[in-house]
């Protein structure tokens, strides 16, 4: 009897604590947002105006690309980064889980390295590679240099996509690993092979659907990373990625800058909700 009373009391205290934590978190996260919104709609006379938001779609004054173009550029960057990371990690991890379980810890350590080294170190490494293959005097560049030069081009920034894929490895590794560990992988693969499925069908029809939630989560993390990444893009002299573009808006229009931030934050938030809704709906279908 007494033990059940304490359980109940502990539970109710637990519920109270949860609400408290939630409220504090809400203040912490929503507070600044409200302050920012407030700042963007205030006029010098004390009134309220949405002019700053109207400015977002107006052509930027200093020859910069527009808001939409910068945002789309970053969205595409994140899409390609997600695709590259998943294309690398999904087959690798399936292979590890099925045939090379002893190498799992080695690969895990490698994948966690980007957490240990700050992005700046990564950039230094990249620029050193470029320096090492750069043409000597009287030389017009090795094929490797030309390929790397091509990859750096701002119209198809493969270099940036590859860098972001590396930076996303720690998160992507974890989420896919968790998803795979929850599956009886070897049995599912053997069942599919036994029924005559090719490797391609086995992976796409049998293994990927139950991994959907993991993949969506991995995509999430990658997306958030790319949409907010400033250091690498700016040091490598890219101007189109959204965070760089935002930082380079003329400082005079502080209100407009804040409006762009708020607007893009809400946009990204909406995109995340959309994707998560999609992931949850998919996972409800067949998974316990």
């Amino acid at each position, binding site marked *: 009897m007494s033990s059940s009373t304490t359980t109940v009391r502990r539970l109710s205290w637990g519920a109270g604590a949860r609400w408290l934590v939630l409220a504090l978190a809400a203040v912490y996260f929503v507070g600044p947002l409200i302050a920012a919104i407030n700042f963007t709609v205030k006029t010098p006379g004390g009134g309220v105006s949405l002019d700053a938001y109207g400015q977002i779609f107006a052509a930027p004054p200093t020859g910069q690309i527009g808001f939409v173009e910068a945002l789309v550029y970053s969205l595409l960057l994140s899409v390609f980064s997600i695709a590259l990371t998943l294309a690398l990690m999904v087959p690798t991890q399936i292979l590890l889980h099925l045939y090379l379980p002893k190498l799992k810890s080695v690969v895990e350590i490698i994948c966690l390295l980007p957490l240990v080294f700050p992005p700046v170190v990564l950039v230094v490494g990249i620029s050193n590679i470029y320096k090492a293959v750069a043409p000597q005097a009287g030389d017009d560049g090795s094929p490797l240099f030309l390929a790397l030069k091509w990859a750096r081009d701002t119209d198809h920034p493969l270099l940036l996509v590859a860098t972001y894929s590396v930076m996303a490895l720690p998160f992507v590794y974890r989420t896919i690993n968790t998803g795979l560990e929850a*599956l*009886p992988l070897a*049995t*599912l693969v*053997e*069942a*599919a*092979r*036994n*029924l*005559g*499925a*090719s490797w391609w*069908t086995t992976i796409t*029809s*049998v293994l990927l*659907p*139950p991994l*959907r939630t993991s993949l969506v989560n991995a995509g999430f993390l990658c997306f958030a990373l790319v949409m907010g990444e400033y250091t690498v893009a700016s040091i490598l002299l890219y101007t189109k990625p959204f965070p760089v573009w935002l930082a380079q808006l003329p400082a005079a229009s502080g209100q407009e800058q804040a409006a762009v931030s708020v607007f893009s934050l809400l946009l990204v938030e909406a995109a995340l909700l959309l994707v998560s809704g999609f992931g949850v709906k998919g996972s409800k*279908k*067949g*998974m*316990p």
Partner: protein
Amino acid sequence: MTTTEIRATATGVSAEFRDVRRVFGSMTALDGLTLTVEPGELLALLGPSGCGKTTALRLLAGFDRPTSGGVFVGGKDVSGVSAAKRDMGMVFQSYSLFPTMSAADNVAFGLRVRGVKRGARRAKAVELLELVGLGAHAQKYPHQLSGGQQQRVALARALAIQPRLLLLDEPLSALDAKVREQLRDEIRRIQTELGVTTVIVTHDQEEALAMADRVAVMNSGRLEQCADPATLYQRPSTAFVAEFVGTMNRVAGVAESDGRVRVLGHSVAADGATRAPGEDVTVLVRPESLVLNPALEGWTVTASTFRGANTRLRLANAGHDDLLADVAAHRVGDFPLGARASVALHDAPVLVAS
């Protein structure tokens, strides 16, 4: 597709292991296995855990390759054929249904892979689910089905591709006793109906004897004996088989001439190695082969286990190992705990163990 149609295309092929060895590092899982599965029969691979049953089955399915020796299906060496091309239906020990597919989609998977049109494979899936008694559950997902139902779906899925061989790796071991017995009978019924050559792996001797046309008893990667259940039980060829299948008493005896032994005061015919007359031997005798009679001296009843149709008594006697003896229900009253009994033998051949 009716069952007769399935049958027409799936009449059994034979399968054969020829001196197959499979070595994992320092572990020899199969040590010269030679065994033939006859067309259309249900053969049980029986043996203790770790004796190589699963390894043998996986060699048939193509998930693994022998270190040496050959695996033949329908008389042809299949060593170069990948698992996906072998057309073998396998049911796994652990639940193996594809978690994001409904029961019907699971069953239809093998047909989808073979390019069968949607309508046709749906119809076949429903038909097979009805065959395993799950017609009403076609749209359910694996996590909505019980363990027994999942294994039924797995069976239907394996049968859908009209397999050349049906391979079952301890398909019932995760189920509780009642479901296990039910499904055992059902697998046997369906197998007989379809006539598909079937290999079932089990460590449960009762299951093997109840289901199989023939039982192959394995021990440490080798075949001990392959025979029909009655022969296996009544005329085991090795002590291992005798003691693994059912229960045996080890009784001291003395060899006589003409391959007979004297045991418990009787002279009986003996299987196994012949011995020089007068040599001491150990003889294996089943509890039901012992005949008890009330007596004033001799063996004493020390324990009694009710087993339904009969009761198993434990008997002690100074200078002898304990004996187990089965007594019919109507005679149990003659042998309460502490009662004395004389022990005789039915006149059937016994096996000399050593």
